[in-house]
């Protein structure tokens, strides 16, 4: 019951989804769409568990006055306010108005978007520090990495003169030809890895994600 039934469920649904692919008939499509819908709905319940986890970890921090507990207050405050706005207040309580709520939108536009975009833009700095640290001609492999990166970046040097055209061509060749070959090799390997892993899961060979008694 605790261990066997879940494995049987994995097997049944896994095999069904494989067969579904070979059956174009409407009824198979119909079940397929249902199953996917269900996963989204279960996801909402999982979201409740997740928020519970976030609140509990933050609350524990505050209760036991662990290091940086003050900031956990900010997390809970942000969460609480955003939920309040998202579920709307006043007149439109409990209608889909929630997502259109003025403060909800403003928190999104003026807190989430700026932080998100700034986090993303940190990449400009990190890409430079990573390049400095790693692009060194230590070995043949590292040199290949370094040289091809340099060739592609050199296109942005305005003082190349007549060489510019060849740089451009070499760079686009690098991005077209070896790139395509390497990607294909990786994708074929990954495809096999995915099929093998999925089979192991469906056949119940790989099962430790289902826990133990």
């Amino acid at each position: 019951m605790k261990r066997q039934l879940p494995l049987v469920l994995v097997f049944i649904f896994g095999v069904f989804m494989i067969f579904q692919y070979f059956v174009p008939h409407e009824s198979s499509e119909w079940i397929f769409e249902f199953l996917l819908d269900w996963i989204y709905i279960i996801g909402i319940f999982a979201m409740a568990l997740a928020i519970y986890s976030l609140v509990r970890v933050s609350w524990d921090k505050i209760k036991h006055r662990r290091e940086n507990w003050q900031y956990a207050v900010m997390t809970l405050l942000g969460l609480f306010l955003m939920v309040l706005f998202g579920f709307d207040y006043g007149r439109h309580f409990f209608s889909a108005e929630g997502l259109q709520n003025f403060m909800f939108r403003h928190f999104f536009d003026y807190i989430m978007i700026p932080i998100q975009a700034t986090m993303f833009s940190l990449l400009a700095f990190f890409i430079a520090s990573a390049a400095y640290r790693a692009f060194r001609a230590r070995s043949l492999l590292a040199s290949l990495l370094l040289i091809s990166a340099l060739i592609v970046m050199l296109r942005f040097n305005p003082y190349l003169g007549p060489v510019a055209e060849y740089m451009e061509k070499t760079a686009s060749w690098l991005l077209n030809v070896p790139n395509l070959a390497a990607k294909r090799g990786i994708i074929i390997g990954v495809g096999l890895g995915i099929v093998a892993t999925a089979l192991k899961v469906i056949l119940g060979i790989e099962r430790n994600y289902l826990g133990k008694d």
Partner: protein
Amino acid sequence: MSNIGLIISALLIVGGLLWLLIRSLTGREVERRVIFIFIGLAVAVPLLFNITFSEKATPIVKGIFDKIENLPEGSKILVSFDYGPSMAPEVEPMSNAFVRHALAKNHKLYIMGLWATGQSLAASAIENVIKPEFPNKVNGVDYINIGYKAGNQGVLNVIITDFRKLYATDVDGVNLDSVEIFHGIKSLKDMDLLISVGGGFPGIKEWVLFAADPGNIPLAGGSAAVSTPLLYPYYPRQLIGLLGGIKGAAEYESELKKTYPDRFGDMPTPGIKMMGPQTLAHMVVMAFIVIGNLSFFFAKRKRK
């Protein structure tokens, strides 16, 4: 004022890099925060002081410029807006530059789009570029916007034989038969140059396969950086030229400015502007790679 700032910051960046370079000869490493400062400066300074670099047009860009330049006055040029708002920052400078160049040379300009979103972007190009900068040009005589039709490459399949099978009117609902610019125009084959600006599907590739190749019409393109490498193989056989990403746009803009200093001396050049931080940041990253290798090399020698 801005010149002083420019000189100071240039000294800071170049001097700082030189100093780091000399330090690296003794095998010393650069601290991460120093790299961060340089990247920050390399992006911020060109933005603040409007630093631009002279872009020299590569042959692939020059190919388009020369074509528009050398066509006899009154030639027919069609520009297709095949992009949406998300791609616009990168490719809008290109379509604007093409429009400017074509009208400045007194060519006839035909505007259309294979993307539904292209129609409104084309309209904004007319509002923001043509009307204020070329007040003498008349809609329906010197330029026309025939807009978007659904059907992706299917549209090209049809208009390569006959425009009027799909396009009865322009975007304003004016019958094509009644506008001067469409007199004697039957199909795409009557155009002297096609230009597709975009970077997705349908885009330049479809123009090559369904219009330029079968109709044997010269085609030029402007594409977002992501899809540019995939289009290079078409140059120079099927594409007379290609602007790749913001860099291509900048090269075209600087070519325009250089050739027509009076006319386009103070036109907005978003491409060149965007290239300032890009160029400087790339050079700083490359400089740090060089510094890193030097310090690695000398540290190794020292140990020996």
